[in-house]
């Protein structure tokens, strides 16, 4: 068990190191940030000053080692565009992304569960078929295009919801959040729904197949025989039994949702980390690109590590297969 965990952690570190090298060297291959940072009118002395200030005069391998040393201490460089520490800049944007992602997860469960149950109970009815058809669309439509259509219909044509931004924020435990005010909620609704779309479809699928399977079980027949109301059988007995796998899958989707928020944040101009990375790529703000990519890769590696370890605790076969291979 311990050997398995140590091997997994070592593997994660190797992946992280390879990624950091890839990202660092790769970022240096595109464009010269000096051209972006310094106005064309600046003279040679000014240019040299900036180059030295950002450490761009040193050889690449030395820059990488300085970068690694600093990264270990939590310093991933200063943003070229904002001249604040890159990591701080990302952490400043993080609450907005986390709020949007959490709202999306919540929506996918709140909308997906009842719809999936409906479809599971009447798989051949018109309602069930319609729900499944819509869920196929949720899988296959490009998210950004659905976002545009939402904006066009609900913001431009009907004028019910704002087109972009985060709206009024309020402080909750020192973190700005949108969901506490009406204005903030109105801003949150469309992007959260857009981000949730794929997961709503996923939850509908899972709930439907789960419900169909559960309805054939003996405990449901027994509950019916006892004369329980249908709503109680579905709402308590069936739901309890199908909820665990659904919750697991949705929790596992959290990382993907954070990654996908890049698209939604760009469409709705939501000021989170996803919009930050796209803006940073546009102006070639290297430290922010590097810091964001490393941070999100780290988040993913951690999620995968935790999932692997949980699985190995729950299912010994995973460990055994691992030690053989």
């Amino acid at each position, binding site marked *: 068990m311990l050997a398995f965990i140590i091997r997994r952690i070592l593997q994660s570190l190797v992946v992280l190191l390879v990624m950091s090298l890839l990202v660092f060297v790769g970022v240096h291959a595109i464009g010269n940030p000096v051209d972006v940072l310094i106005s064309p009118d600046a003279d040679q002395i000014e240019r040299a000053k900036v180059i030295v200030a950002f450490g761009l005069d040193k050889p690449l391998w030395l820059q990488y080692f300085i970068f690694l040393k600093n990264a270990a201490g939590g310093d991933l460089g200063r943003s070229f565009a904002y001249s604040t520490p890159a990591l701080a800049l990302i952490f400043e944007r993080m609450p907005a992304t986390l709020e949007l992602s959490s709202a999306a997860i919540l929506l996918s469960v709140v909308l997906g569960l009842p719809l999936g149950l409906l479809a599971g109970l009447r798989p051949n009815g018109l309602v069930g078929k319609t729900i499944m058809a819509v869920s196929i669309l949720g899988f296959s439509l490009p998210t950004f295009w659905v976002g545009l259509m939402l904006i066009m219909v609900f913001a431009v044509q009907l004028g019910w919801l704002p087109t972009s931004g985060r709206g009024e924020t309020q402080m909750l435990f020192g973190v700005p959040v949108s969901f506490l005010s009406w204005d903030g909620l109105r801003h949150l609704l469309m992007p959260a729904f857009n981000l949730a779309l794929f997961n709503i479809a996923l939850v509908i699928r899972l709930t439907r197949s789960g419900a169909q399977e559960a309805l054939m079980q003996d405990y449901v027949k027994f509950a019916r025989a006892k004369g329980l109301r249908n709503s109680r059988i579905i709402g308590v007995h069936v739901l309890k039994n199908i909820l665990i796998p659904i919750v697991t899958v949705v929790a596992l989707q959290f990382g993907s949702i954070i990654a996908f928020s*890049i698209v939604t944040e760009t469409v709705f101009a939501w000021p989170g980390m996803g919009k930050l990375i796209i803006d940073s*790529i546009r102006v070639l703000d290297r430290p922010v690109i590097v810091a964001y990519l490393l941070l999100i890769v780290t988040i*993913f590696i951690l999620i995968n590590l935790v999932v692997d370890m949980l699985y190995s605790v729950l299912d010994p076969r995973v460990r055994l297969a691992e030690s053989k291979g």
Partner: protein
Amino acid sequence: MEPTPARNMAETPWQRFVRNFFGSRIATAGFVLLALIVLAAIFAPVISPQNPYDLAKLDVMDSRLEPGQASVDGSMTYLLGTDDQGRDMLSAILYGIRISVMVGVLSTVIALSLGLTLGLLAGYAGGRIEAFIMRVADIQLSFPPILIALILLALTGRGIDKIVIALVAVQWAYYARTTRSAALVERKKEYIEAATALGLSPLRIMFRHLLPNCLPPLIVVAALQVASAISLEATLSFLGLGLPITEPSLGLLIANGFQYLLSGKYWISVFPGIALLATVVTINLVADQLRDVLNPRLQTQ
């Protein structure tokens, strides 16, 4: 639907495949629509009312005209309106489909060849080679595709070659995994043993004997992947990470019209969006039907 034995005897496998495939009305409709889209993409330069990238042909006076309006000099009617540079949207969309489909198919073919070779190698050779290839594939599949593509494009910049590389990097692991699992099953069968006993070279066994028997699941995965590749390319181009402005795919056309969408000029974004949607959905329909037809477990005996 019970095919008579006599008819089955006379039927070649290909004929049976065709009959099964067109047994579904939705799949047939999807196939016909997809064929039209692909034809439109191939013949875009011939059927477009205008060459949308010949700047000399564009007239700024015609910019942002609504669908159905005639150009200022009266020489043509813009069926789907014009964009901010006075470009005919219909022509821009036809060229856009051409680029999107090309990028999707090209990246899928390259990724398929790469993943297939690695998967066959892993499945046939086993041991350390297998462990290494599959470990890399596993690690890669633990990241969402958009993140892999974003990392690569943030590092390499924009361009048609770069987006194809990014899409190949995203896709190869699916093929490697599918091929390996099919190869593992096939490897144990007697015809491989026979081929080995005949003293055929491993390469010949891998590509002439193993590969043809691993193909059906791969065809299905590849068909579905073309749709997701087109969709991902559109998303990346929309974000400004994919194709350069000189090679506008559907995603870029949609992005281009986004700012005008807010002021009610819907056509610049919406029509390319519908074209993208039609392409992705029809490919999915055809791929789903392929899966049903090629899956031996679902086939009627």
